[in-house]
Protein backbone atom coordinates (compact mmCIF):
# COMPACT_ATOMS: atom_id res chain seq x y z
CA UNK A 1 0.00 0.00 0.00
CA UNK A 2 2.79 2.41 -0.83
CA UNK A 3 0.90 3.84 -3.78
CA UNK A 4 0.47 7.55 -3.62
CA UNK A 5 -3.32 7.52 -3.68
CA UNK A 6 -4.04 4.56 -1.40
CA UNK A 7 -7.09 5.06 0.79
CA UNK A 8 -7.81 3.64 4.23
CA UNK A 9 -11.46 3.64 5.28
CA UNK A 10 -11.92 3.22 9.04
CA UNK A 11 -15.22 1.78 10.25
CA UNK A 12 -15.96 2.30 13.93
CA UNK A 13 -19.73 1.88 14.16
CA UNK A 14 -21.77 -1.31 14.39
CA UNK A 15 -24.09 -2.37 11.55
CA UNK A 16 -27.42 -1.26 13.00
CA UNK A 17 -26.37 1.42 15.46
CA UNK A 18 -26.23 4.21 12.88
CA UNK A 19 -25.86 4.46 9.16
CA UNK A 20 -22.15 5.20 9.47
CA UNK A 21 -21.02 1.65 8.75
CA UNK A 22 -23.12 1.58 5.61
CA UNK A 23 -22.04 5.02 4.46
CA UNK A 24 -18.41 4.17 5.17
CA UNK A 25 -18.61 0.99 3.10
CA UNK A 26 -20.26 2.99 0.29
CA UNK A 27 -17.29 5.37 0.27
CA UNK A 28 -14.91 2.40 0.06
CA UNK A 29 -16.88 0.82 -2.79
CA UNK A 30 -16.97 4.03 -4.80
CA UNK A 31 -13.22 4.56 -4.34
CA UNK A 32 -12.59 0.98 -5.52
CA UNK A 33 -14.90 1.49 -8.50
CA UNK A 34 -12.77 4.54 -9.40
CA UNK A 35 -9.70 2.32 -9.36
CA UNK A 36 -8.27 3.69 -6.13
CA UNK A 37 -6.53 1.10 -3.90
CA UNK A 38 -8.69 0.78 -0.75
CA UNK A 39 -8.29 -1.09 2.53
CA UNK A 40 -10.78 -1.28 5.38
CA UNK A 41 -9.90 -1.06 9.06
CA UNK A 42 -12.52 -2.02 11.66
CA UNK A 43 -12.12 -0.51 15.12
CA UNK A 44 -14.34 -0.47 18.21
CA UNK A 45 -17.90 -1.65 17.63
CA UNK A 46 -17.21 -1.63 13.89
CA UNK A 47 -15.58 -5.03 14.28
CA UNK A 48 -19.00 -6.59 14.87
CA UNK A 49 -19.56 -6.19 11.11
CA UNK A 50 -16.87 -8.89 10.71
CA UNK A 51 -18.60 -11.46 12.92
CA UNK A 52 -19.23 -14.70 11.05
CA UNK A 53 -22.87 -14.62 11.98
CA UNK A 54 -23.31 -11.00 11.00
CA UNK A 55 -25.91 -10.39 8.37
CA UNK A 56 -29.21 -11.48 9.82
CA UNK A 57 -30.83 -8.12 9.37
CA UNK A 58 -32.59 -6.40 12.22
CA UNK A 59 -36.29 -6.64 11.38
CA UNK A 60 -37.14 -3.82 8.99
CA UNK A 61 -33.54 -2.75 8.47
CA UNK A 62 -31.37 -3.57 5.51
CA UNK A 63 -28.87 -6.37 6.09
CA UNK A 64 -25.18 -5.50 6.17
CA UNK A 65 -23.91 -8.85 4.95
CA UNK A 66 -24.69 -8.35 1.23
CA UNK A 67 -22.61 -5.15 1.25
CA UNK A 68 -19.79 -6.90 3.11
CA UNK A 69 -19.93 -9.69 0.53
CA UNK A 70 -19.72 -7.14 -2.29
CA UNK A 71 -16.33 -5.91 -1.07
CA UNK A 72 -14.47 -8.79 -2.71
CA UNK A 73 -16.14 -8.17 -6.05
CA UNK A 74 -14.66 -4.68 -5.92
CA UNK A 75 -11.20 -6.04 -5.07
CA UNK A 76 -11.35 -4.82 -1.50
CA UNK A 77 -9.83 -7.94 -0.05
CA UNK A 78 -7.87 -6.54 2.82
CA UNK A 79 -10.02 -6.27 5.92
CA UNK A 80 -8.07 -5.27 9.02
CA UNK A 81 -8.71 -4.98 12.71
CA UNK A 82 -6.45 -4.53 15.72
CA UNK A 83 -5.63 -6.81 18.65
CA UNK A 84 -6.82 -4.11 21.06
CA UNK A 85 -10.19 -4.06 19.35
CA UNK A 86 -10.73 -7.80 19.78
CA UNK A 87 -9.56 -7.72 23.41
CA UNK A 88 -11.96 -4.88 24.25
CA UNK A 89 -14.95 -6.88 22.99
CA UNK A 90 -13.69 -10.29 24.22
CA UNK A 91 -13.60 -11.62 20.68
CA UNK A 92 -11.05 -13.94 19.09
CA UNK A 93 -9.81 -14.18 15.54
CA UNK A 94 -11.93 -17.30 14.99
CA UNK A 95 -15.17 -15.38 15.62
CA UNK A 96 -14.46 -13.32 12.50
CA UNK A 97 -14.70 -13.88 8.75
CA UNK A 98 -11.76 -15.69 7.19
CA UNK A 99 -10.31 -12.77 5.25
CA UNK A 100 -9.62 -10.55 8.25
CA UNK A 101 -6.06 -9.67 9.20
CA UNK A 102 -4.95 -8.65 12.64
CA UNK A 103 -2.72 -5.66 13.41
CA UNK A 104 -0.58 -6.20 16.49
CA UNK A 105 -0.87 -3.93 19.48
CA UNK A 106 1.23 -0.76 19.00
CA UNK A 107 1.56 -1.34 15.25
CA UNK A 108 -1.55 0.67 14.39
CA UNK A 109 0.09 4.12 14.04
CA UNK A 110 2.65 2.84 11.53
CA UNK A 111 -0.08 0.95 9.68
CA UNK A 112 -2.18 4.10 9.32
CA UNK A 113 0.78 6.18 8.18
CA UNK A 114 1.30 3.88 5.20
CA UNK A 115 -1.84 5.28 3.52
CA UNK A 116 -1.84 8.56 1.73
CA UNK A 117 -5.53 9.18 2.50
CA UNK A 118 -7.83 8.19 5.34
CA UNK A 119 -11.57 8.55 5.92
CA UNK A 120 -12.86 7.84 9.42
CA UNK A 121 -16.46 6.64 9.81
Amino acid at each position, binding site marked *: MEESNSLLVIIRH*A*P*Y*SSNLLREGLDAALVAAAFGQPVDLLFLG*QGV*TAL*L*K*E*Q*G*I*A*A*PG*MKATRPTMDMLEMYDIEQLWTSEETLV*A*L*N*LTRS*DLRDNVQLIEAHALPAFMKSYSQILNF
Partner: protein
Amino acid sequence: MLHILTKGPDSDVARQLQQAIADDDAIVLIEEGVLAALDGRWEGWTLYKSRIYLLAEDVAAWGLGELIDSETFATVDMQGFVGLTEQHTQTLTWY
Protein backbone atom coordinates in the same frame (compact mmCIF):
# COMPACT_ATOMS: atom_id res chain seq x y z
CA MET B 1 -38.77 1.02 37.23
CA LEU B 2 -37.72 -0.54 33.92
CA HIS B 3 -34.50 0.84 32.45
CA ILE B 4 -33.87 0.55 28.72
CA LEU B 5 -30.18 0.74 27.80
CA THR B 6 -29.43 1.38 24.12
CA LYS B 7 -25.65 1.88 24.25
CA GLY B 8 -22.68 -0.41 24.88
CA PRO B 9 -21.25 -1.18 28.34
CA ASP B 10 -18.27 1.13 27.68
CA SER B 11 -20.42 4.19 27.10
CA ASP B 12 -20.77 7.03 29.56
CA VAL B 13 -24.53 6.49 29.57
CA ALA B 14 -24.06 2.91 30.83
CA ARG B 15 -22.21 4.42 33.79
CA GLN B 16 -24.98 6.99 34.36
CA LEU B 17 -27.57 4.23 34.36
CA GLN B 18 -25.75 2.34 37.11
CA GLN B 19 -26.30 5.20 39.57
CA ALA B 20 -30.02 5.01 38.98
CA ILE B 21 -30.88 1.33 39.53
CA ALA B 22 -33.08 0.55 42.54
CA ASP B 23 -33.32 -2.91 44.12
CA ASP B 24 -36.57 -3.77 42.39
CA ASP B 25 -35.70 -2.28 38.99
CA ALA B 26 -35.14 -4.32 35.84
CA ILE B 27 -33.03 -3.55 32.77
CA VAL B 28 -33.60 -4.38 29.10
CA LEU B 29 -30.62 -4.15 26.78
CA ILE B 30 -31.61 -3.16 23.24
CA GLU B 31 -29.77 -1.99 20.09
CA GLU B 32 -26.07 -1.45 20.90
CA GLY B 33 -26.87 -2.32 24.49
CA VAL B 34 -26.76 -6.04 23.66
CA LEU B 35 -22.97 -5.74 23.28
CA ALA B 36 -22.81 -5.93 27.08
CA ALA B 37 -23.25 -9.69 26.61
CA LEU B 38 -19.68 -9.83 25.27
CA ASP B 39 -18.26 -8.01 28.25
CA GLY B 40 -18.15 -10.27 31.30
CA ARG B 41 -16.45 -7.49 33.25
CA TRP B 42 -19.40 -5.12 32.93
CA GLU B 43 -20.42 -4.17 36.46
CA GLY B 44 -24.05 -4.68 35.62
CA TRP B 45 -23.50 -8.45 35.51
CA THR B 46 -22.06 -8.56 39.02
CA LEU B 47 -24.57 -6.17 40.49
CA TYR B 48 -27.93 -7.23 39.05
CA LYS B 49 -27.59 -9.95 36.49
CA SER B 50 -30.83 -11.62 37.51
CA ARG B 51 -32.76 -8.50 36.52
CA ILE B 52 -31.18 -7.93 33.09
CA TYR B 53 -32.87 -8.99 29.84
CA LEU B 54 -31.45 -8.96 26.31
CA LEU B 55 -33.76 -8.17 23.40
CA ALA B 56 -33.50 -11.37 21.33
CA GLU B 57 -34.03 -9.73 17.94
CA ASP B 58 -31.18 -7.30 18.53
CA VAL B 59 -28.89 -10.10 19.77
CA ALA B 60 -29.49 -11.83 16.42
CA ALA B 61 -29.17 -8.67 14.35
CA TRP B 62 -25.87 -7.72 15.99
CA GLY B 63 -24.55 -11.19 15.11
CA LEU B 64 -24.10 -12.32 18.71
CA GLY B 65 -26.39 -15.36 18.60
CA GLU B 66 -23.71 -18.03 18.70
CA LEU B 67 -21.12 -16.05 20.60
CA ILE B 68 -23.01 -15.93 23.85
CA ASP B 69 -24.29 -18.70 26.04
CA SER B 70 -28.04 -18.31 25.91
CA GLU B 71 -28.35 -20.37 29.08
CA THR B 72 -26.63 -17.74 31.13
CA PHE B 73 -28.54 -14.72 29.80
CA ALA B 74 -32.24 -13.99 30.05
CA THR B 75 -33.63 -12.86 26.72
CA VAL B 76 -37.02 -11.44 25.78
CA ASP B 77 -38.62 -10.97 22.38
CA MET B 78 -40.56 -7.79 21.51
CA GLN B 79 -43.70 -9.21 23.17
CA GLY B 80 -41.67 -9.96 26.28
CA PHE B 81 -40.28 -6.43 26.22
CA VAL B 82 -43.85 -5.08 26.18
CA GLY B 83 -44.61 -7.45 29.06
CA LEU B 84 -41.78 -5.92 31.10
CA THR B 85 -43.15 -2.42 30.50
CA GLU B 86 -46.52 -3.66 31.82
CA GLN B 87 -44.95 -4.93 35.04
CA HIS B 88 -43.13 -1.67 35.80
CA THR B 89 -45.13 1.53 36.18
CA GLN B 90 -42.25 3.62 34.81
CA THR B 91 -39.79 3.08 32.00
CA LEU B 92 -36.68 5.15 31.45
CA THR B 93 -34.56 5.03 28.30
CA TRP B 94 -30.80 5.64 28.47
CA TYR B 95 -29.38 6.59 25.08
